């Protein structure tokens, strides 16, 4: 038994998990600072802090009340609301309300796991796919197109819809992959630009006849027929949105574990990512590895897009994966948080999904905008990406964890 001393030693030796947890703490601190600096109620309390003896205490109380309320609603909105849960346990009623937070977190985590694994695979190959969002958009558009325009029995239609999503994403991944392999265009520039192209392409499709909801002038698609939707896991009557997409996410995770740890392609990916010179010297076809990595990554990102539509909204409009809803961008941070490993990504996705979902609850309860969740996520990732900084702040002893080493190549390559 390690005992307290053992636990303390383990904490001080800075394992990746320790670093991630401490980064979470620091991220929440950053969020709190932002809340304090921008919330009028808190600022007003501090403005009067030196007018009377009791005022500083009052100001502190106002600060803690506001920040506390914000973080409490992130927790209750994404995991569990204890009083509500206790009410359900004792009376057996209101289970929908009790389980909705967890269900929402899982619902959001489904596409996030898939998209983050997509990004992680390119990171493992030493490539940076910032275009996962654009690829997910293409996947969503292709999926909705097949779902609404093709008529098939359900047993075929749902798989075909998901396949269409993959195909859409593969197209999106092929462009940066092939361009990099055959012209040397830097994938960072190409994928960044491609996100915008994909968004406009989606708008174009949503405003064109076959895809647009009839008799509409807005950019909104037809609704996917029931047979192509990923049904709620506990039935429509349960009121919980968590859906069979969870099976897809699980399958993708297993696939990624197999691909990266068991398959020869994955081995080539990792060797290329760790040391491209060694990879080339040992006879790995650099160009093929690069294209394959981008195709798989794009395909998974597309799958993430279609899984999100098929599992939740069942239609897309002009806000699909735009702005704060861009899971392809969150996926970059999740992948870094999970150190580009499938299992790490699953945990990272659950955490970040909880922050997103909780952020919406925070906005509903306290008015503080849910965009704060994005800021906290980015801060967490900055700390995870610079473990030495975390080590210094918390005075950890050794850094057993190696920093996230993802060598993205410079422009000339």
């Amino acid at each position, binding site marked *: 038994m390690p005992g307290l001393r053992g636990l303390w030693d383990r904490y001080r030796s800075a394992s990746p998990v320790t670093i991630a947890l401490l980064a979470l703490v620091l991220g929440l601190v950053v969020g709190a600072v932002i809340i304090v600096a*921008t*919330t009028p109620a808190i600022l007003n309390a501090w403005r009067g802090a030196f007018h009377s003896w009791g005022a500083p205490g009052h100001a502190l109380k106002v600060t803690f009340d506001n920040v506390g309320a914000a973080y409490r609603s992130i927790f209750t909105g994404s995991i569990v609301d204890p009083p509500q849960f206790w009410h359900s346990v004792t009376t057996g009623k209101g289970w929908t309300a009790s389980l909705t937070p967890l269900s929402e977190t899982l619902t959001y985590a489904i596409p996030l796991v898939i998209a983050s694994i997509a990004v992680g695979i390119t990171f493992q190959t*030493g490539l*940076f796919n910032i275009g996962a969002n654009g690829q997910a958009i293409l996947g969503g558009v292709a999926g909705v197109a097949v779902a609404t325009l093709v008529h098939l029995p359900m047993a075929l239609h749902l798989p075909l819809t998901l396949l269409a999503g993959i195909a859409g994403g593969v197209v999106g991944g092929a462009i940066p992959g092939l361009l*990099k*392999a*055959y*012209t*040397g*265009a*830097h994938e*960072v*520039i*190409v994928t*960044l*630009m*491609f996100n*915008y*192209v994909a968004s*406009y*392409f989606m*708008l*174009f499709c949503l*405003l*064109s006849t076959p895809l647009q909801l009839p008799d509409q002038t807005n950019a909104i698609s037809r609704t996917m027929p029931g047979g192509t939707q990923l049904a709620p896991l506990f039935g429509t009557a349960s009121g919980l949105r968590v859906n069979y997409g969870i099976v897809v996410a699980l399958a993708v995770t297993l696939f990624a574990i197999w691909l990266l740890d068991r398959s020869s392609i994955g081995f080539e990916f990792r060797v*290329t990512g760790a040391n*491209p010179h060694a*990879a*080339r010297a040992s006879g790995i076809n*650099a*160009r093929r590895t*690069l294209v394959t990595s981008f195709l798989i990554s794009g395909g998974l990102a597309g799958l993430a897009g279609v899984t999100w539509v098929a599992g939740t909204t069942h239609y897309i409009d002009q806000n699909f994966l*735009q*702005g704060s809803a861009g899971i392809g961008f969150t996926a*970059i*941070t999740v992948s870094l948080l999970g150190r580009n490993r499938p299992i790490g990504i699953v945990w990272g996705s659950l955490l970040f999904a909880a922050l997103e979902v909780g952020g919406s609850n925070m906005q509903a309860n306290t*008015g*503080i*905008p849910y*965009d*704060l*969740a*994005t*800021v906290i*996520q*980015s*801060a967490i990732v*900055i700390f995870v*990406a*610079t473990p*030495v900084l975390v080590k210094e702040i918390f005075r950890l002893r050794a850094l057993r964890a190696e*920093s*996230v080493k993802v*060598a*993205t*190549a*410079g*422009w*000339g*390559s």
Partner: protein
Amino acid sequence: MTALASTAARVRQPLGRTQAIGWFIVVVGLFTVFGMGVGTGTAPSSTLTFTPVDVSHGAPWHLGNLTLPTEWTLVLLGAVIVALGAEVLVRRLAKGAMVRVGLMAIVFLVAVLVWASRQPGPSQVPFINVTAILVGSAAITMILIYGSLSGILCERAGVVNIAIEGQFLGGYLVGEMIDSATNNWLLATVGGLVIGALMGWLLAFLAIRYLSDQIIVGVVIVTMFTGLASYFNSWVLTPYPNLNNGNIASNLAIPGLMKIPIVGPTFFDETGFFYLMLVLVGLVSFALFRTRWGLRVRAVGEHPQAAASVGIGVERTRYVNVILGGAVAGVGGVAFAAIQGQFTPSITSGFGYIALAAMIFGRWRPSGAVAACTLFGVSAYLAYNLQSYQVPISTEILLMFPYLITIAVSAGLVGRVRPPAADGIPYSRE
């Protein structure tokens, strides 16, 4: 790190890249001649006007309208494009090929404009306002140049600043808020400068002190500030709309020079930010290539170990340059606000990234960056401008154009440009 690319570059393609580019340009030219030029109907004509839209500082000397026969103009423009392609093919231009593609894009867009505005024709705007197009292009170009200069300052010292987009956003937000509160663009500029410098410092701190991957940290910084800007937008700007009143900066016309038709409104009836940009281009150019400071910066960007061995503080130089670069991009964000007005969360729409691509296209030189930004700026504005004519291309496709041309250009470039040797590589003394 260059292994992937060098294999790609060493393998010879069956059809050489230069030939492919040349033939592509020729095909576009032929399309201009035969697709649009010949057979546009009953001898239509296109009219050019030269009166600027904004004449609040007095109009330039009057130029009459110029009416051109549409068909022959298109044939002529098509011939120019074919000539560009032929030049690439005959002279086997390897280095200049992508410049020709850029010129082709501009000439082609002009041709589409001439074609779309023909009368009798479907267009409800019966003329092309040449001066207005140039004024609009100059505005976009100015923003891009600020971003490119920021990139040059950082990358010449060996740090990739992909956070320009975020610094634009930060400068825009802060500049807009300060100007709304004080009605003073000078204060706004100072604010944008400070926020940009702070963001530059953050990147420098993580990239130089903790040797993080610069591209990744840069992207995360952009994500963070995008979130922060949205947060601010709904938490501060929505309840206090008078902090986002969307005033645009008034022009400072240079007396006399602004009277010159076309040139005057484009270059001499501009906001202070435009003149500041011109000064900065000269300053950065001079400082980087004519001063000891510039020599040191470039040494740090090319070979930090060698620079350190002769006593140059590598970390210090990089810190200074990344902070300077951030400040320039921050001011660029304020300039963006000064011409665009109200802040919305995704207002910078990737211009920071396009500026970065322009910097690469311009080979990490201010003069090259100006040329590349002009190319991107003019073609972007022409594509946006086409919306007002009844062209049979949907708006969404036109809006893709700046991004597509950026992809196309960066695909044609690589292997032809050489970044600073230590660009993007963390430096540690051990």
